[in-house]
């Protein structure tokens, strides 16, 4: 009965979303307070109903209710509890339900925290949010019903895709969706602003926390996905420019641009139509990613259930959301007047440069992802665009972005001098150049570009810290005064410094891992020892072990350094019994400066086992850096939350209402 309850709750949620998506709009147009108030009630009701539906599906998974087709296809009674729960979103129907859940939760959050928004703006935002919800709920109910029953019920399920039975991937989709769906709120704000015909500093101040929150979650989601690919696929790499990865990178780039351009709207009352466009694009690119991944238009190494009928629905939905938004934009945006005058050398000038470069990056990724499709349809040629394309396009565009990133914070608003800013950075520049030269000589003389890229990483870190030290007048004022300044520093600029510095660490990790890693592949029999990068690695034994729903070969390797025992590593190769599928479980020993990475390959007692060893310098920094990037966002967000209530109390904004 519980699945039926969930199903009914979902149908009711669709009905409520229809009401929420229409009546408040009418109310906002006519100035009818009661219709506008309906938006808040409906948003809370809708959230409650979708929570109910999600709870019902979770219950079916946890109790292994094999009369539900979705549970049969994706779960198994022998699965550990955590993967029974993550199985809820580890499939197409469930992940769409998770998407709808987060969407309605964000809607409810706008209803709860948006008490200080002007009534018309709030009801329009809620209505747009609900219209997006209508699309997702209809998609679920008509094409991907997760509550479909199966009769007769089989005795056991088919189990979750073994690759997904991993703690990293259990939380990757929810984080990613928090990011994608978070952009739906900024999209709703952009549409509401176009309907209102007004974009002002107050609007930017409301949009920024939502953008920040979505951006932080997306950052964490992407980092977790990349980390997962690193340790589960066993290829030693962390980013493969696969369409699925690109699909999440594009909204991230657009969102990063939005994050920065919203500041210009807030502080300088300029760049309005551009910011609105970015808000529309960030969410559109999120939807585009979903479409590409699930429709079967592009192939990917990552497997997803693909169905052209669903593809048509998502395409129609994508067109309605993006097309509707952009049509409204083409119609209303020319009326958005900016008051600010522009000087190229100024904080806002630097932020525009940042936006141009970030958008170029997003366009590059979009082109690289879609080019095979275009070419195939136009000429029938099949090509695959791989890392060479992205290394030749994406990476060089990053160089000016990183170069300018440290200079921007030194420039003042309105008008600034470039030379004093550069002079303040001369120490950072010197350090970076020295590091790059040392790296190119000491590590690998042939990898000059890698050394330059490494220098850029150092530049980001030192440049950001120099800026922060200057802000605190560290060294130039008494320590007590600097500490006082530290306490008075707004959280937003603290967050900026953290995020920019962390980006530098990501760059260092990525460059070092890609360019300077060491690898060794050797077929080893138990008892054999190989020397690798100063370590002596001995294969002690390979044994069979039994897990909850798999059997595995587990190798035990003793690693010694200078003859002294250093660590023991146990990579596995798991064979999942239900799906007859093998998954490599790498063993990684990290000391935060480098990863010692071992995978176990094919083999048997007579021939020996294929053992692959990697030494990845600075690899942990990639994910730690990304996590700190997100942390910087959260720090900045904590500042906003305190100040978000301010504008509605200010006379200037009250007059504007």
């Amino acid at each position: 009965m519980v699945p039926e309850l969930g199903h009914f709750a979902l149908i009711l949620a669709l009905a409520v979303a229809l009401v929420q998506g229409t009546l408040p709009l009418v109310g906002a147009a006519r100035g009818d307070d009661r219709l506008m108030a309906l938006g808040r009630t409906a948003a809370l009701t809708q959230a409650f109903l979708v929570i109910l539906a999600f709870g019902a599906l979770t219950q079916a998974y946890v109790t292994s209710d094999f009369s539900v087709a979705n549970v049969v296809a994706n779960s198994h009674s022998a699965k550990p509890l955590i993967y029974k729960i993550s199985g809820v979103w580890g499939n197409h129907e469930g992940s769409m339900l998770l998407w709808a859940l987060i969407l309605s939760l964000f809607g409810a959050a706008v209803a709860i925290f948006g008490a200080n928004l002007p009534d018309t703006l709030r009801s329009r935002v809620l209505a747009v949010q609900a219209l997006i919800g209508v699309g997702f709920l209809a998609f679920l109910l008509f094409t991907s019903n997760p509550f479909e029953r199966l009769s007769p019920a089989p005795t056991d399920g088919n189990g979750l895709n073994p690759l997904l039975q991993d703690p990293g991937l259990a939380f990757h989709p929810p984080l990613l969706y928090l990011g994608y769906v978070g952009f739906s709120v900024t999209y709703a704000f952009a549409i509401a602003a176009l309907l209102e015909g007004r974009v002002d500093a107050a609007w930017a101040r409301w949009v920024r926390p939502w953008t920040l929150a979505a951006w932080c979650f997306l950052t964490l989601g992407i980092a977790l996905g990349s980390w997962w690919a690193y340790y589960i696929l066993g290829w030693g790499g962390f980013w493969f420019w696969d369409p699925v990865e690109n699909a999440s990178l594009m909204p991230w780039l657009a969102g990063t641009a939005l994050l920065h351009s919203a500041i210009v709207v807030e502080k300088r009352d300029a760049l309005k139509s551009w910011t609105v466009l970015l808000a529309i694009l960030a969410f559109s690119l999120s939807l585009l990613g979903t479409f590409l991944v699930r429709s079967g238009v592009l192939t990917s190494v990552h497997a997803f259930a693909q169905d052209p009928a669903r593809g048509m629905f998502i395409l129609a939905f994508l067109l309605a959301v993006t097309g509707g938004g952009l049509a409204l934009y083409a119609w209303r945006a020319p009326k958005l007047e900016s008051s600010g005058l522009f000087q190229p050398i100024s904080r806002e000038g630097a932020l525009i440069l940042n936006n141009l470069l970030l958008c170029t990056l997003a366009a590059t990724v979009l082109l690289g992802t879609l080019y095979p499709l275009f070419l195939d349809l136009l000429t029938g040629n099949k090509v695959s665009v791989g890392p060479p394309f992205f290394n030749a396009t994406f990476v060089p565009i990053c160089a000016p972005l990183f170069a300018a990133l440290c200079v921007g914070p030194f420039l003042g608003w309105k008008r600034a001098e470039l030379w004093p800013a550069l002079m303040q950075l001369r120490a950072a520049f010197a350090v970076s150049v020295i590091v790059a030269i040392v790296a190119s000589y000491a590590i690998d003389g042939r990898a000059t570009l890698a050394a330059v890229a490494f220098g850029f990483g150092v530049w980001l870190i030192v440049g950001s810290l120099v800026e922060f030290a200057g802000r605190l007048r560290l060294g130039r004022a008494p320590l007590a005064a600097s500490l006082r300044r530290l306490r008075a520093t707004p959280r937003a600029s603290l967050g900026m410094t953290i995020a920019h510095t962390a980006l530098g660490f990501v760059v260092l990790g990525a460059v070092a891992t890609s360019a300077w890693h060491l690898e060794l592949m050797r077929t080893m029999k138990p008892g054999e020892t190989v020397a690798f990068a100063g370590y002596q690695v001995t294969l002690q034994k390979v044994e069979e072990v039994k897990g909850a729903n798999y059997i595995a070969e587990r190798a035990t390797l003793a690693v010694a350094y200078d003859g002294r025992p250093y660590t023991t590593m146990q990579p596995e190769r798991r064979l999942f019994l239900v799906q007859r599928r093998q998954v490599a479980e790498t063993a990684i020993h990290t000391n935060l400066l480098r990863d010692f990475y071992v995978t176990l390959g094919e083999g048997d007692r007579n021939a020996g086992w294929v053992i692959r060893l990697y030494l990845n310098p600075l690899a942990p920094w990639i994910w730690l850096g990304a996590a700190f990037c997100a942390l910087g966002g959260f720090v900045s967000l904590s500042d906003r939350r305190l100040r978000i209530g301010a504008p509605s109390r200010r006379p200037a904004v009250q007059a504007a209402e």
Partner: protein
Amino acid sequence: MSRRLLFLLPLLTLALMAGFFAWSLLAGRDPAAIGSVLVGRPAPHLDLPALRAGDPPITDALLKSGKPVLVNFFASWCAPCLAEHPLFTRLGEREGATIIGIAWKNKRDEAEAWLKRLGDPFKSAGLDLDGKTGLDWGLSGVPETYAIDGNGIVRMHFRGPITERDLNESILPFLKGAK
């Protein structure tokens, strides 16, 4: 007016993209499986320099040895090739299959380094730097794998990486049956 057009630009771009997407969906195109005209026909001509220094060149004779042969097109820059590589290692080392590897549009030193790193399951390895042989073979990208019987007739054609399932259900029965 031109300012208006500027604001219309995003919408126009979207319309163009959407046209392509709809075309792709309606054409019923499956990017993973496109079928092959080669199955049942003699394998195309093969005349390539060897990838490994000192090996004899790769010619048609290798395909007509009377034994079934697998021909695998790969490249060091291709991630799916990495995914299927362990299966070829198993085929070559454990099942004793004869596999001809052809590095497609790949620099010699990069392909060699790739094989050195991952292991080299190929009995013979050729280099198709300009991709002409790939054209003759109807290649749509890498990786692709052809199963050729002892008489030089193509029996199976896999586009994209081979999977455990392909191995167990198609390739191994073929190798056993063709003997």
